[in-house]
């Protein structure tokens, strides 16, 4: 019975995506009449498990925009390229999309791949948008037309700290894995914690392929810190973390990055995460988020988690800027994207909007929310913003 259900489910998913794809591709009959937007995604590499749901959101937003008559009287045509999360391939694919005449590129792969692709887009200053949360993406390279809409690691930790302030933390343990994003998030978590006067007494890495996290978690237990911060990305290794946490009978509060919002955890670490607080970029109470949720539910017949919302915002961010620019000229689009301050997407806390006035990472610092796992589901928002 179970297998039949799963197979049918898988079949429906495939059909759903295929349907979306035809919806997106339809109207692309005359290529000159479309606005081409490139997507570099990971379909076959190790970032695939979160890139695929995000891609769903990108496609959904495109479909709806096209159904509403498109942009500037033209349909949007998505050109999707797979980089397998390989940085060198990602850079090549960026060039391929530029050659194909895209007006902008959405990077939906790891931060390492996105960074290497940036070295290609910087040459032509074609607009590039990502929801990746790595703080270094807009800092290492001075790419004037690179925009980041996801919550940065530094915002995540500030939000968590604001939430934790009532708990009066003095010390904290920091656990992550050896993935690139996990490492970068951990770095900004540490900076953020120390800025708030919390001492990070234990820093542990659970490397990919570990069989147990017990040695690391024993050190965490021995340090008796007031809280445990989790910056890891990998589902398997994070499950090991939760197992060891339970086995050692730890009681400290766990505060996680937005990676814990990946629904996989609700299955692999089922029942182990009750009461865990994590950063989410989506507040279901926000009207823009509700619009997204409704659209998603209509398309797929179920409630979305936050991941597709990232893709939804990536695309809608571009669409509104193209509309305001009134043109697909890259310099004008670039300026319009820069001037998107005040535009509200599905991401971000209720009442917040993107803000690009201070930099190219536009996620409103007050936009991240803290949610709690309840009944093995993403529970209510318990805190929002950094205050």
């Amino acid at each position: 019975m179970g297998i039949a259900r799963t197979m049918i489910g898988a079949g429906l998913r495939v059909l759903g995506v295929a349907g979306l794809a035809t919806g997106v591709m339809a109207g692309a009959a005359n290529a000159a009449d479309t606005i081409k937007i490139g997507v570099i995604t990971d379909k076959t590499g190790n970032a695939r498990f979160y890139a695929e749901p995000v891609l769903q959101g990108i496609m959904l937003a495109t479909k709806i925009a096209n159904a509403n008559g498109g942009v500037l009287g033209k349909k949007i045509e998505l050109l999707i390229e797979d980089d397998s999360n390989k940085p060198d391939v990602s850079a090549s694919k960026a060039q391929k999309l530029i050659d194909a005449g895209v007006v902008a590129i959405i990077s939906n792969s790891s931060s390492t791949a996105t960074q290497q692709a940036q070295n290609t887009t910087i040459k032509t200053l074609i607009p590039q948008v990502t929801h990746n949360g790595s703080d270094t993406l807009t800092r290492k390279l001075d790419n004037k037309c690179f925009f980041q809409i996801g919550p940065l690691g530094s915002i995540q930790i500030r939000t968590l700290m604001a939430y934790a302030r009532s708990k009066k933390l003095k010390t904290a343990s920091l656990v992550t894995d050896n993935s690139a994003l996990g490492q970068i998030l951990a770095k900004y978590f540490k900076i953020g914690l120390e800025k708030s006067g919390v001492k990070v007494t234990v820093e542990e890495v659970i490397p990919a392929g570990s069989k147990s996290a017990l040695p690391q978690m024993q050190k965490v237990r021995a340090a008796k810190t007031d809280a445990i911060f989790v910056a890891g990305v990998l589902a398997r290794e994070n499950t090991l973390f939760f197992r060891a946490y339970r086995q050692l009978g730890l009681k400290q509060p766990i505060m996680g990055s937005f990676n814990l919002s990946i629904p996989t955890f609700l299955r692999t670490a089922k029942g182990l995460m009750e009461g865990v607080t994590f950063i989410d970029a989506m507040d279901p109470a926000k009207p823009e988020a509700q619009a997204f949720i409704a659209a998603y539910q209509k398309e797929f017949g179920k409630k979305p988690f936050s991941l597709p919302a990232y893709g939804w915002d990536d695309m809608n961010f571009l669409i509104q800027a193209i509309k305001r620019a009134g043109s697909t000229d890259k310099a004008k689009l670039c300026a319009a994207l820069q001037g998107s301050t005040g535009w509200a997407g599905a991401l971000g806390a209720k009442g917040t909007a993107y803000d690009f006035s201070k930099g190219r990472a536009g996620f409103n610092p007050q936009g991240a929310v803290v949610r709690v796992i309840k009944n093995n589901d993403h529970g209510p928002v318990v805190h929002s913003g950094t205050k």
Partner: protein
Amino acid sequence: MVALMRWVGGAAVLCVIPFLLQPYELDLYRKLLFWVALAISYNFLFGISGQMALSHFAFAGIGAYAVVILMTQAGLPLGLAVVVALALAAALALIVALAATRLEGFYLALATLAFAQLLIVVLNEGGSLTGATGGLTNYRLPPIFGFVIGGPGTAIIMIAVLLATLAILLRIDRSWFGRACRAIRDNSEAAAAMGIDVARTKTIAFTTTSVMAAAAGMVYAFFDNTVNPPVFGIDNAIMLLFMVIVGGSGSHLGAIIGAVLLKLSQDFLEPIVGHYHALGFGVIVVVAILIQPKGLIGMWDQIRARRVAARKRAAS
């Protein structure tokens, strides 16, 4: 003289191509050249010298990181950075070779695999020196003799490295050294009985080809002006091995064909058949090994030999 003309002609053709290509094609072209250069030197190491090392990409990474770190962090001028980086790669290769060439067959594969893994750990943990997991970026190739090198320029530098690699390896392959390497590959006991110093020959082959990989890696570092650990990991090392096997291990032309075919299939087939491409890739490798252990070049030779035989029969 004719041979020299042929080289010059070949180089000219290769160097004209980048100016005819669209930027994306150009990017593929120089990355393809990078793979071909690595495949040529790896073929000498694996196909001719018989050493199944999995450290070749690691040495490309050592070259790439070394030249960038020396240039941007030690502040060396490009020329000096290249020389020091090559020396560094040679020293490391020699150390690995002295230890690892004593090992046979899969033991060598395991030891070099462990070395490659260790390098990734070091790169990931290297802090600001290596840029950790994010790698190093935001540097540029400085002007060479006053010329600012752009996309086609980096392709031409890659061509120079590739042709130098090929020329050097062809020359030593057609000498007593190449014969010694092949002899060791085929039967190291008999090779020793013929007066070949097995350990020394293997060490020279390993060090030389690893330095060549480092040289190719240095040029690669300026393609996207980024170096990061994933590119130099085990996936690509195995890909390189497959290129040489599919093309025809032991044959320079085979290595080139294998590299071109597998790299292009990755770039052109994948968008069409999606993930089935990777699966088909495994099937091709297995079938190649099962049907013709000398790869595509072996198949070609077989067909040619049959034709010649048929013609002889027809004539007589």
